[in-house]
């Protein structure tokens, strides 16, 4: 088990390095994309900042608290996005038959897609998200202790799992239909947008959807109650605030199970 994990980690590293070397062949495009990503994400947070500068505050929320929500969501999204490019181009691979090549290699297909064309130029969003997360964490007045640092890390990892799971689900649909499925971006990119703001500003059905169906609230809004020692925020029992971000891993596992079903269907239809 451990040997297998180490072997897969090494292969992932080599494949990711190969992607970077390939991208490095087109240096100008690489530099421009990284820069544009950084500018775009900075402008995004600039918009939130401008809201605060103009209107003072969202009811009951300080800018630094929103920065923590924003930072967690964006770092998680950037991490997931780095490994999601393969899933992004996957529908095209089904159409052209290139997916067959992945099936001929002795590795799980989801693993190969996660390692396919890893995009280092997406560091823009990661750097910006991390910077805002650190800034928010310093300004928000949290009593930092080991447990809270660990909780924050689990939130980021759990969030990355959820976004990754959503990318997997989106790609899985391509096993059933070759139609374009940009509608799913509502929960991926839209989910990231949603998670950048406090949940209280949304309508109840919307909150419920992003707590239970796509549990993005569980990786930033709910555990924020534990981080800030303000249990009233989530309205849940205190232990749940601490445990909520752990849903990330099972969510991803469930998505990968559905992926397996899709793969089995592919094997029986060949398209």
């Amino acid at each position, binding site marked *: 088990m451990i040997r297998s994990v180490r072997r897969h980690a*090494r292969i992932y590293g080599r494949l990711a390095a*190969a992607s970077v070397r390939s991208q490095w062949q087109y240096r100008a495009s690489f530099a421009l994309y990284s820069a544009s990503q950084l500018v775009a994400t900075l402008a995004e947070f600039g918009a939130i900042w401008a809201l605060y500068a103009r209107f003072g505050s969202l009811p009951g929320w300080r800018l630094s608290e929103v920065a923590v929500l924003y930072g967690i969501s964006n770092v998680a999204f950037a991490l997931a996005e780095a490994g999601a490019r393969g899933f992004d181009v996957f529908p095209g691979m089904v159409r052209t*038959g290139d997916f*067959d090549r992945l*099936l*001929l290699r*002795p*590795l799980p297909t989801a693993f190969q897609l996660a390692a396919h064309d890893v995009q280092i130029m997406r560091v823009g969003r990661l750097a910006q998200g991390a910077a805002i997360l650190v800034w928010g964490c310093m300004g928000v007045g949290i009593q930092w202790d080991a447990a809270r640092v660990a909780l924050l890390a689990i939130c980021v990892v759990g969030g990355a799992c959820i976004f990754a799971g959503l990318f997997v689900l989106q790609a899985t649909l391509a096993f059933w239909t070759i139609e374009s499925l940009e509608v799913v971006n509502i929960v991926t990119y839209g989910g990231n947008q949603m998670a950048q703001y406090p949940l209280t500003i949304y309508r109840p059905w919307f909150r419920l959807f992003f707590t239970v169906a796509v549990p993005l609230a569980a990786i930033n809004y709910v555990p924020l109650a534990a981080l800030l020692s303000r249990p009233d925020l989530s309205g849940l029992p205190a232990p749940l605030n601490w445990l909520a971000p752990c849903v990330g891993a099972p969510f991803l596992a469930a998505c990968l199970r559905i992926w397996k079903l899709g793969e089995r269907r592919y*094997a029986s239809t060949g398209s």
Partner: protein
Amino acid sequence: MAQIEVRGLRKSFRAPLRSSGPFGALRDLLHRRTRTVEALKGITFDIEAGQIVGCIGPNGAGKSTAIKIIAGIMNPDGGEATVLGRTPWADRIAHVRHIGVVFGQRTQLWWDLPVIDSFALLREIYGVARRDYDETLADVVERFHLAEVLDSPVRQLSLGLRMRCDLAAALLHRPSILFLDEPTIGLDAVSKLALREAIRDWSAERGLTVLLTTHDMDDIEDLCRRVLLIADGSLLLDGAIDDLRRMSSARRTLMIDLAAGVANAELEGAELVRREGDRLWLEYDPEQVATHELIARAASAFPIRDLTVADRPIEEVVAQVYRDAP
């Protein structure tokens, strides 16, 4: 036990029917109509270790479906297949570790990286031990003449070189069985010969089993002692090239160059099928009249400068078999 055992393999697909007209796409979305296409209607064969077997058939006859199933990409609706003792579709990852696959149409190498980097990545993916890898690599580089191209990005290679690199890449993990899907498609004559030689030598020396699909009959004549002819989902023939020739009529052609000015070129026992100036093409059935007998008759009937006897070109034979297929 044979390396590849295939028993009564069946597979059908549901192909969507597309509506025409301005709202066709919308109608299809609401009410999907399909028709069933039987791609394989029960195919059975064995392949022993070290054989090179060619799989031919018209486009859409089912040969790619058969290869896909045996390679582990697709599962059948019915029937059984065992490759090296495993059921390919039930145990994909263990299965593909022991086979190599080359598609003539697309490369499995990393487009923007030097060839040697692709090879190193494949070593990691297949978990090949360093010493085995070094040994195999040295062998393929020498045999396929790749020393100069190892540091070139794949996108800069000519198609012929790329195919040799792809073949090398498929052999690095020392598979027992190699599947080649139209390996010589689009290659020039020299590259074709080089590729065939590489395949033939490797198979002979390492006991590699090869199953290839092709539309190029020279591939078959050069490489394969055995041919599987698949048409309309059924195995029409499993035998040698000569069996294929025998499937159509066994007629041969006698081509004669006459000395100038012979008017009457009729010959008993043969049919004049074509004449261009002083050159005649006569078709005959060797079962009816022996070749030497016919030549003797011709020699006494008219003055001959030169003559040759030829089988019908294999392409013509195959084309006729395809046409005659149900």
